[in-house]
């Protein structure tokens, strides 16, 4: 969608005519959503946009502006109607005395909004990140002082500091830094807490302009600081879970500061990519992080959010160190507005329906119900001297024909908002009734039924191809490419994906009544099989339930372990078996684990209150029905994302160099787009997908300029 949006900008004056060929009935791939019974939103999983998704937000804002919806008739008229900031992030960890301890952190709002125009200043310098990391370290060290309340105005010892603890020493010139140093030396202030804070602030200043100082000194300073900190921390006894978590984060922050300097990342032309062969935990361990910190809820939470488990195995976490660090620095230090942004509706409604509408207005053609079967390459023997190989034809299965040969109308309107339905509108399809009765699953990799085949020929039907399928589908649709080109072969072998599982439950009582006293939250590193939970109760207002509507809505997701043997292509029942597995996981989870989050959602641990679940079908309970039991879960929504196109791409150590860039010109009429490509931010997320889409547009039209793809040129 991002590529189509870029190539059809009005400024290009219709230079490109774009046709989108789409599997099934809806756009969005992993981000697609649909409206089910009672207009309830049914997602592939949990989708939260981070506050640093600059490219994604920029395009989305432009899309809404061009769309020009009437706020009087459409409640999602503006992007700010569609997204709202969520500043609460939670982590769950095992408590010292058993059970779970829950951390709820509030991240303060960052000035500006994601997608705002940027200036020529560079926020992406590693020195700048290090300075901020030092500031974080300073805050954390301060927080260890439990003997007396620290007063930042007067200091623990009552002396008035010359600089406020929050002051940014990075603005000081080297002369001023020197004056501060001299003052500290002369008055021996560093033996006090206030002096120490100022000294740490100087560390921040020195790190921010690391290029001004000799590398050996920096390294010596950082390593000395780390060694002393660790020596002391090892002897500390964490008397409570909060202190323990704080010590772990200090340990990790110190490891990052030391590692960045020790590995020369500030000066390495590869930037953080220089350490992508290291597994993130391994790299932190190399730089002194303790095992306790490496297994902390904070680290586990970062892995959970990235679904970073090879083959879905919780015992095989895998995240390339450089990309993990890049993602964390961007996440914590470059967000605008809020660290998280949640959607008021489904991702399909909030993102893909507006893009669909704008692109249709621009003249983009959509061909739904087209399954790509083969990207056929030219015969190499027919190439002229110096001519590059190219895509000669695209072969599709046509899954359904539209009645009367017209155009399929994919959207439905719910409470004034154009939405994608959870099922296709069979009424629009030839033999639609029979297809519905047959249980056609147009999105299943294992349902290959089709009504026709069609082939597009280069120069006759197209000039350029943007391949936007997921990397999981590449072996199936690019067989010739993979067979002929070792780079593509290496890519599909090394750029791995993982299946995921998701469930959503609608509840008849509000969260506080269930025992959750915190604000609505996105919480991670919780117990498997659903380690991530988001309170999505806000989305209920967009759904269309009969009175009385549900009072709360919760999304859960996690990886789903792959079977040892890849399922056979003809195993049509495979998705159903995995979905059944997800359902069983969810039922067990509600019975056995949910009470840690919602203590009043159970009669007792092991006995979920099934009557809490709201039924969207509106069916009345039979008078002779027994007490509510696990069968009530059938009214909820769950899914196993096992289709190759639905699988989540991983950023495993030693794998990122095998990704291929959308800018690659080996096949001079083919480019690729998706969060699995080498797009600058090589981790599965919306931002990566949009960056990749913009790069694909650049590959074809030399626009947008690479400098405008925000964060592409990032250390």
């Amino acid at each position, binding site marked *: 969608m991002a590529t189509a949006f870029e*190539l059809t*900008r009005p400024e290009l004056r219709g230079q490109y005519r774009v046709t989108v060929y789409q599997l099934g009935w809806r756009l969005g791939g992993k981000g697609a959503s649909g409206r089910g019974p009672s207009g309830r939103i049914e997602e592939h999983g949990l989708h939260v946009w981070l506050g640093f998704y600059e490219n994604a937000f920029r395009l989305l804002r432009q899309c809404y502006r061009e769309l020009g919806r009437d706020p009087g008739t459409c409640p999602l008229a503006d992007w700010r109607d569609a997204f709202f900031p969520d500043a609460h992030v939670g982590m769950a960890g095992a408590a010292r005395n058993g059970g779970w301890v829950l951390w709820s952190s509030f991240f303060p709002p*960052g000035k500006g909004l994601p997608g705002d125009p940027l200036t020529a200043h560079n926020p992406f310098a590693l020195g700048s990140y290090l300075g901020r990391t030092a500031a974080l370290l300073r805050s954390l060290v301060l927080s260890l002082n*439990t003997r007396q309340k620290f007063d930042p105005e007067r200091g623990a010892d009552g002396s008035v500091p010359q600089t406020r603890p929050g002051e940014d020493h990075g603005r000081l010139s080297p002369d001023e830094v020197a004056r501060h140093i001299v003052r500290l030396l002369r008055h021996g202030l560093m033996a006090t807490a206030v002096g120490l804070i100022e000294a740490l602030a100087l560390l921040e200043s020195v790190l921010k302009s690391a290029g001004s100082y000799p590398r050996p*000194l920096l390294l*010596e300073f950082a390593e000395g600081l780390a060694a002393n900190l660790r020596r002391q921390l090892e002897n500390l006894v964490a008397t409570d879970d909060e202190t323990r978590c704080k010590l772990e984060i200090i340990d990790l922050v110190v490891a990052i500061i030391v590692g960045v300097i020790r590995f020369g990342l500030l000066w390495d032309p590869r930037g953080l990519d220089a350490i992508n062969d290291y597994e993130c935990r391994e790299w932190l361990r190399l730089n002194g992080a303790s095992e306790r910190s490496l297994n902390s809820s904070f680290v586990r939470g970062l892995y959970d959010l990235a679904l970073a488990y090879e083959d879905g195995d919780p015992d095989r976490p895998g995240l390339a160190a450089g990309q993990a660090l890049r993602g964390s620095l961007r996440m914590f230090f470059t967000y605008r507005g809020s660290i998280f942004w949640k959607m008021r509706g489904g991702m399909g409604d909030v993102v893909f329906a507006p893009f669909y509408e704008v692109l249709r207005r621009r003249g983009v053609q959509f061909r739904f119900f087209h399954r790509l079967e083969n990207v056929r390459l030219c015969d190499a023997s027919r190439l002229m001297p110096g001519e590059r190989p190219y895509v000669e034809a695209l072969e599709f299965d046509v899954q359904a024909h539209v009645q009367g040969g017209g155009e399929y109308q994919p959207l439905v309107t719910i409470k004034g908002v154009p939405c994608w339905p959870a099922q296709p509108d069979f009424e629009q399809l030839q033999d639609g009734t029979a297809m519905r009765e047959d249980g056609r699953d147009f999105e299943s990799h294992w349902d290959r039924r089709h009504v026709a085949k069609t082939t597009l020929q280069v120069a006759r039907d197209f000039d350029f191809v943007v391949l936007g399928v997921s990397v999981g589908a590449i072996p199936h649709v690019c067989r010739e490419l993979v067979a002929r080109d070792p780079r593509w072969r290496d890519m599909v072998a090394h750029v791995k994906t993982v299946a995921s599982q998701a469930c959503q439950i609608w509840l008849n009582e509000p969260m506080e009544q269930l025992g959750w006293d915190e604000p609505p939250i996105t919480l991670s590193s919780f117990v498997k099989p659903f380690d991530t939970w988001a309170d999505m109760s806000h989305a209920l207002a967009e759904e269309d339930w009969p009175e009385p509507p549900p009072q709360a809505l919760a999304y859960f997701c996690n990886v789903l372990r792959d079977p040892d043997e890849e399922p056979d292509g003809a195993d049509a029942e495979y998705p159903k078996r995995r979905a059944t597995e997800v359902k069983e996981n969810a039922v067990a989870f509600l019975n056995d684990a949910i009470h840690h989050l919602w203590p009043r959602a159970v009669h007792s641990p092991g006995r979920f209150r099934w009557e809490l679940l709201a039924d969207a079908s509106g069916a009345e309970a039979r008078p002779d029905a027994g007490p509510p039991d696990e069968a009530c879960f059938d009214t909820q929504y769950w899914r196993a994302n096992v289709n190759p196109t639905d699988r989540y791409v991983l950023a495993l150590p030693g794998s990122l160099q095998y990704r291929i860039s959308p800018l690659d010109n080996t096949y001079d009429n083919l480019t690729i787009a998706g969060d699995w490509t080498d797009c600058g931010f090589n981790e599965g997320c919306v931002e990566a997908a949009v960056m990749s889409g913009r790069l694909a547009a650049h590959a074809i039209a030399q626009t947008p300029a690479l400098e405008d793809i925000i964060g*592409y*040129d990032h250390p």
Partner: protein
Amino acid sequence: MATTIPEPAPHEPRGPGETPHEAKPERLRREDPKRSSPIRNATTYFRDSHSWDEGAPDPDPRGDTKVPLSETLDDVITHGVHLGYKVIEEHILKGQRAARQLRQSGPEAEAERSELDAFVDQAQRLYQDLGTLCFDAIETLVRSPVLLRIIQPGAPLQGADPPDTARDAAAGSTTRLAIEIVSRHRTRVDLRLDAGTHLRALRVHALHAPDPNAPPLTAITFRPDRGTALLAVSVPDPQPAGLYSGVVVDAESNEPVGTLTLLIAGSAEP
């Protein structure tokens, strides 16, 4: 999957086998991009050079777009630090509550109370030791000739080691490097130098291991040796196994020019 046609599109095929189009005489080709990978080094910066937003109204009038991003980010950090203090206060209060509970929980909590006291004492000592460390480190910085030159432009590089004139004369435009390892450990050396680095005057101050208890390796020299630059490394017998790394600098300017890593495996061989 999207296809693009940079001219008015022909009709799409309507059914199986239908091919109503006339073949175009020649297919189009993409231009080679100026580059195909991001610039990752420290000089990177982005800008809105050709943004479609340029000159256009702010996509969101509610957004504060006049504030430079650098300020925005600094503010984020400032907010973060202030938040840190709020968190600290909260934790102090929690600590006080925990202490009260310990005091009220009877004689069996005596051991835990002493644990808490020990923790607080150690935290206090941590600040004091950190203060000393920072004192030392900053003193080192102040004595740095490079820092002095930054603070006082024109100041001589007092304290800096004089350049080795004999080494200069002998090395000239040396491009060959020999490595001499004196070690009873099995040792692997990884030397990476920036392109164009002159081998005539290099220095490594020390190599450090991730384990802070491992002593740094300091017996490392670069010296000219019959027209060849010689890197000599001596590994003491009791040196713990591990990965030791450090920065290679130009001996005259103290500018970093590369990294040196030693992997010391196992215990010393007899």
